[in-house]
């Protein structure tokens, strides 16, 4: 009785006998959300699909230092930490971070000696950093200054630039993160409403009429991709909204009551690495023994970084951050300084409960980095299919408005809309692809951090130029064909450029990963150009609408 009254009060016609008015509402809602977010959703989904492979595969491809070696002997790491600890003032031994050259962090083996309370020159967290070539272990770079500045200005590369663009659209934080977080939420709305309005799921899962007109094929493709990818889209929407909004909205809101609004206190409570009590009794910290133990315990996992607290003190604590292996989520190994293994825990610390397990799983589920390169490739394909959904939806919406006895969209307006989609979405694809040959050129001509200043202008000016081209009254089919040709040419250029200028390439085979990536770029580039030329030759891909 109560439940019936409550459902009536809510005023929703749901359940098995879902009324047609409810379906109409859901359809309209699906259309509105899709149209408003289409271009932004494409941008985030496409850059996300590329970002899946950014770490470590494409990062290794982009950095010749990483191509030569991603493994440094444990004894050498121990030697370097001890040697350079003696060279820094004592307060810098509070916290030592070792970033291994795994393709996940820095392109060099990086030792960061941190003083949380500053020093005589700085009254903030300050760091002395030493970076070594992963293969030769030659000192390549040093830094002294605020820790934040060091991490903010670290060397970037094309894949990392695209990965960071996916995270916050390079709009900075919090605006960029909030925007991508909300796009995750709208993807969730689109996926859920889409499932309701396409109720004949089984039939539509296998309906794709290729031989019909393009608009019918696009409509079928939208439904097939949407339904097959619905679980993926819901997972990506959910995890994406969480990753975008967690630190900006969700954690401050949660801290409001439990910690009196003190977000730092909340993070401190959940922090995995508490400060140890320094005993001032000397005892060598066995970094090499610890690294060897971790390697033997989790042979398939990658050690991303090591944190040493109270180095060479009897109370020293060592934490290793691992990725991969048998564990789905990243894990944190805790050791005593004498090499004794304490425990393996989540990267958020030793927190019990179901929620933390779900949060742990969000990262691998979003990044697709939990079961090797084949799952990553699957995530790339699914990510690209997510990017196609707003485009196909937009095409359906536009086509519908040019039909009937009184179309609401003229053919000129239809052409303008198409050019805008090609300029904004195709322009993003082109700008992303152009970064790869540019990376090869930069590796040849510009050293280290100086490369950072090139990616932004190349990426955004290419995108802007291509978007501005859409203002010109050119045929949108030609515009599309040209976009595809240039995208293909950009990717196909990588292999010959690497042969001419690169340290590793398909001829010398110094790095098999570089050879595979170069060949993959060439294949995708040729396919893009082939499809572009096919548009011209056969006229099969008509993006036309029948006039009323």
């Amino acid at each position: 009785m109560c439940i019936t009254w409550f459902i009536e009060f809510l005023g929703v016609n749901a359940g098995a006998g879902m009324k047609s008015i409810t379906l109409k509402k859901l359809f309209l809602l699906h259309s509105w959300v899709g149209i408003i977010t289409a271009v932004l959703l494409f941008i985030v989904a496409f850059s996300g699909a590329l970002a899946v492979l950014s770490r470590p595969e494409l990062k290794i491809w982009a950095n010749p230092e990483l191509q030569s070696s991603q493994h440094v002997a444990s004894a050498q790491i121990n030697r370097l930490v001890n040697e350079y600890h003696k060279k820094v003032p004592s307060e810098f031994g509070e916290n030592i971070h070792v970033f291994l050259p795994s393709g996940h962090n820095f392109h060099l083996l990086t030792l960061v000696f941190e003083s949380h309370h500053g020093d005589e020159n700085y009254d903030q967290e300050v760091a002395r950093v030493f970076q070594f070539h992963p293969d030769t272990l030659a000192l390549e770079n040093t830094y002294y200054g605020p820790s934040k500045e060091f991490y903010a200005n670290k060397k970037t590369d094309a894949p990392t630039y695209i990965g960071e663009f996916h995270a916050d659209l390079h709009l900075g934080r919090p605006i960029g993160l909030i925007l991508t977080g909300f796009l995750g939420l709208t993807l969730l709305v689109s996926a859920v409403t889409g499932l309701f309005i396409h109720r004949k799921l089984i039939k539509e899962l296998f309906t794709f009429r290729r031989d019909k007109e393009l608009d019918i094929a696009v409509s079928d493709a939208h439904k097939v991709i949407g339904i097959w990818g619905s679980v993926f889209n819901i997972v990506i929407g959910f995890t994406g909204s969480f990753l975008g909004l967690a630190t900006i909205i969700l954690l401050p809101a949660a801290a409001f009551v439990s910690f009196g609004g003190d977000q730092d206190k909340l993070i401190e409570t959940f922090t995995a690495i508490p400060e140890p009590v320094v005993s001032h009794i000397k005892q060598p910290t066995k970094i090499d023994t610890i690294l060897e133990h971790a390697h033997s315990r989790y042979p398939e996992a990658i050690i991303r970084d090591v944190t040493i607290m109270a180095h060479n003190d009897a109370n020293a604590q060592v934490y290793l951050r691992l990725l991969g292996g048998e564990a789905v989520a990243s894990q944190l190994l805790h050791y005593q300084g004498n090499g004794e293994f304490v425990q393996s825990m989540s990267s958020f610390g030793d927190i019990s409960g179901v929620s933390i397990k779900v949060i742990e799983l969000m990262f691998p589920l979003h990044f697709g980095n939990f079961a090797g390169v084949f799952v990553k490739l699957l995530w790339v394909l699914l990510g690209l299919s997510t990017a196609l959904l707003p485009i196909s939806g937009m095409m359906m919406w536009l086509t519908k408005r040019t039909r009937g006895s009184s179309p609401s969209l003229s053919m000129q307006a239809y052409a303008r809309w198409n050019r805008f989609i090609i300029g904004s979405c195709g322009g993003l694809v082109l700008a992303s692809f152009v970064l790869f040959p540019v990376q090869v050129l930069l590796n040849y001509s510009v050293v280290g951090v100086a490369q950072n200043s090139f990616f932004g202008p190349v990426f955004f000016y290419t995108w802007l130029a291509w978007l501005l081209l859409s203002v010109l009254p050119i045929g949108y089919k030609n515009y599309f064909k040209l976009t595809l040709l240039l995208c293909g040419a950009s990717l196909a250029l990588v292999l010959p450029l690497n042969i001419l200028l690169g340290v590793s390439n398909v001829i010398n085979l110094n790095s098999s990963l570089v050879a595979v990536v170069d060949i993959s770029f060439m294949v995708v580039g040729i396919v893009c150009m082939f499809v572009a030329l096919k548009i011209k030759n056969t006229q099969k891909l008509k993006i036309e609408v029948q006039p009323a």
Partner: protein
Amino acid sequence: MNNKKTFTATRRRHLIACVLALVTAVIMIPGMTTYLPFQMNEQILLPILLFPIIWTALFIYAYLAQKVWQPFVVMIALCVLHGLLSFWALTQGQG
């Protein structure tokens, strides 16, 4: 499809879906930490995890409800209830 026939008070629904649903979902996070019968970890993390689901449900509900006052009343009630719970928890020095 004529949306004038499908929806009543479309502008107000947009406002409720875009603004009130977000405000409600955000206010519910600290409010829920006061009554969830779990350990502190779960009390804090579960509302955070539920945020995307709550927002999505409220957003869709703003459009699906037959009358525009229904989602408005539901969301205002949720806001007031969770706001008061947070206020009481803060004034009683919990957490």
